[in-house]
């Protein structure tokens, strides 16, 4: 509305100048601007009668939503009086139990600086180990053990020609592992060329000892 007014007339509208302070050639424009501004200020604002109803309906709907009710319930301050009667040692015992639980949560107790840190570092190295089983007539052979969560399908052996010899090569971390061969998906067979220990189920597990430079079966 004031786009076309002279800057001095705009200052007049802002109250920074009086009409008498305007140059004579701008007084008529100033008077017209004041008249228009005065008329605009006095014009009554007429709102639609339905507007208030619509606004209030929206406010009521919003206030009645379950989310808002829950928020108000959670957010409204209340006076709560809590009285506890405890013996100090029970508090300490509870705190100790919580601390112990936290320690368990954070992991096993840290091992002492026992000898062999270097050796354990070496044990993490992987070494290729060849597994061989003579199983003529077998249709499928696999090797399962502590190194693959005893998964019967994780490490299949492949037949070496038609001689009945099955073989596979796996990368195992240095250290010792227990294992067994699984013939045709069901029959667990110890490695006849490896030492074996009781598996706790009345059977035997073979043991492979893997050293950094090679494997000893």
């Amino acid at each position, binding site marked *: 509305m004031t786009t076309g007014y002279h800057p001095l007339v705009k200052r007049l509208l802002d109250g920074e100048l009086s009409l008498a302070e305007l140059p004579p050639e701008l007084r008529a424009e100033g008077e017209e601007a004041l008249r228009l501004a005065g008329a605009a200020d006095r014009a009554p604002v007429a709102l639609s009668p339905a507007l208030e109803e619509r606004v209030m309906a929206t406010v009521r709907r919003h206030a009645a939503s379950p989310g808002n009710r829950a928020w108000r319930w959670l957010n409204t301050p209340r006076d709560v009086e809590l009285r506890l009667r405890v*013996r100090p*040692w*029970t508090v300490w*015992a*509870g705190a100790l*139990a*919580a601390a*112990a*639980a936290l320690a*368990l*949560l954070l992991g*096993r*107790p*840290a*091992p*002492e600086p*026992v*000898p*062999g*840190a*270097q*050796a*354990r570092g*070496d*044990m993490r190295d992987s070494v290729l180990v060849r597994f061989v089983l003579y199983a003529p007539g077998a249709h499928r052979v696999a090797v*399962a053990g*502590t190194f693959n*969560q*005893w*998964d*019967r399908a994780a490490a299949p052996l492949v037949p070496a020609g038609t001689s009945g010899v099955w073989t596979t090569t796996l990368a195992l971390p*240095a*250290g*010792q592992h227990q294992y067994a061969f699984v013939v045709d998906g*069901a029959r*667990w067979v110890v490695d006849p060329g490896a*030492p*074996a*220990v*009781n*598996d*706790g*189920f*009345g*059977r035997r597990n073979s*043991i492979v*000892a*893997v*050293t*950094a*430079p090679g494997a*000893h*079966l």
Partner: protein
Amino acid sequence: MRTIGLAVTLLLGATLAGGLAAQAVQPRLDQRVSPEVQRAVQVIAADAMAHGLPVEPLVQKAIEGAAKGVPNDRVIAAVRALAGRLGESMAAVREAGVAAPGGDVVEGGADALNAGFSGGQVSDLVRVSRPPHDPALTLRVAATLAALGVPTKQALQLVQGTISANRSPSDLLGLPGQVQAGVAQGATPAQAAAGLARAAGGTPPGRLPDWVPPGQQKPKNPHKP
């Protein structure tokens, strides 16, 4: 009142340990073992965890049993027996002066117990493991030697002798393979181990230089008429 407070405290501790064990064990066992085994292993693992024992071997044993198609009750019995061996191993390792042993050492001790070593021998094996030898490795090598048929007492002496002779951890880990090589050449496991003990630096600790295992002949002295 005091008794109730103590009971509540203990119950709280046990519940927390049980909850943590269940958290640690359940994801590993899901869809690998039956719900019955899963529940039982969680209880056993909670007890083990409360005693500071490693839980992973118990999980592995349960998974192994299920993979092998072993009936539930036998899987649970095996897991329970393993937990017992882990507890015995923990006591033996502590007896050797390691106040807070790592899980791998405790597991190695349990392997040695399973192979026929006594708790006292497990303590001896841990005591003899000085740097750079890892007690867990020492225990597992000894267990493997016993599994090969080397008498436990002789296996203990062979391991002790190898470490005393300042051999490397790789040399120690290679002992079972060397015993097997000796057996392949016709020696008994005891004879093969005795040969290694002599080669490792002479006689086992506490023996005279010309000591040989029982049942074997002393070699003839070429300088003696």
